[in-house]
């Protein structure tokens, strides 16, 4: 499979970025909720937030790579069966998901660096604070981080449900393109199957 996208499907790089970030976003949401419920003597009390911050920074780097790669590439064609409003809302959702992820991660960064401390990423490297000591910085950034996390997880669920709906109900190629199947041959296959039934 080529790294680059084609008219019929996403390449392996786009797919890897998409699915690893999907997993990370869900995992980070769960980790974020869970780590805040831990008692002080819980073995994860220190490591939970440390892992959350480390993955967050790595996710930010992946997001930059992803947006750059998206702009260097063609986008696979939408399934021809999609209505105009479906295409528009799908694309607006994608843009919103990117924007939300950026804002969410920046807000998280502003919590942990609010007093000028750096963020340690798995003891590999650290990201220094840039803007800090603003009034109530950690509290305001914290509220924004939490609100955006909920919006992101809801919108990502809508995005995922739409993909599942197109796959199982509309039986089109929307999801297949992100699963490595070439939509052009896949749609021929779907047409062939439909014809075979008739």
């Amino acid at each position, binding site marked *: 499979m080529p790294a680059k996208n084609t008219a019929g499907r996403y390449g392996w790089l786009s797919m890897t970025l998409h699915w690893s970030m999907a997993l990370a976003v869900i995992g980070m949401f769960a980790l974020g909720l869970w780590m805040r419920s831990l*008692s*002080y*003597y819980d073995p994860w009390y220190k490591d939970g*937030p440390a892992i959350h911050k480390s993955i967050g920074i790595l996710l930010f780097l992946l997001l930059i790579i992803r947006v750059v790669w998206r702009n260097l590439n063609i986008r696979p064609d939408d399934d021809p069966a999609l209505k105009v409003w479906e295409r528009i809302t799908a694309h607006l959702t994608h843009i919103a998901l990117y924007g939300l992820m950026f804002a969410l991660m920046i807000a998280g960064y502003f*919590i*942990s*660096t*609010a*007093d000028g*401390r750096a963020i340690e990423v798995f003891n590999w490297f650290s990201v220094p604070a840039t803007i800090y000591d603003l009034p*109530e*910085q*950690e*509290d305001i950034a*914290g509220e924004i981080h939490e609100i955006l996390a909920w919006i992101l997880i809801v919108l990502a669920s809508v995005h995922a449900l739409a993909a599942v709906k197109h796959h199982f109900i509309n039986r089109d190629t929307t999801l297949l393109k992100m699963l490595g199947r070439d939509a052009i041959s896949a749609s021929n296959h779907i047409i062939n199957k439909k014809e075979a039934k008739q």
Partner: protein
Amino acid sequence: MKRLLAIGFTALLSFSGALHATEYKIDTAGAHAFINFKIKHLGYSWLYGRFNEFEGSFNYDPAKPEASSVNVTIKTASVDSNHAERDKHLRGKDFLAVDKFPTATFKSTSFKALGDGKAELKGTLTLHGVSKPVTIAVSEIGGGKDPWGGYRQGFHGTTEIALKDFGIDFDLGPASQIVELTLDVEGIAQSMM
């Protein structure tokens, strides 16, 4: 007329009393007052923090110390332990719940001079929405004219509170149940005019 009489009466009182039987405003503007706390971390070391924003006043007359009184209001969100993530946690629902309880107050109920510049100050501390009596061990540090035409008087006080007495029950471990408060105040005498 009533007002004039009142002013005259107050003036008379202030002149007939001891020279500095007067109200002092705690010098938070010049940051010559500190509300510091310390609590043990795991039982292995002391963690220090402070409240940066508060205001208050006290009355003090060396001739009649038992008439002394203190009032302090603390902005709980100003908690500062030199670590933003910890301060965020301290302001949250596990500890100070500053959205619900934006201020803590101390109002004195009695002041007993013990001699040698020491005193016992009793009062009500309202923290986290809970009001409890506390006793503060006070020592007078000093008082007198300042170089800029004012008159100042300073005290040092210490007390201990148990977090769970004030409804703060996040478990920090058996060695971290008690918070020691260290209070240092310098008051500037308020002129009667």
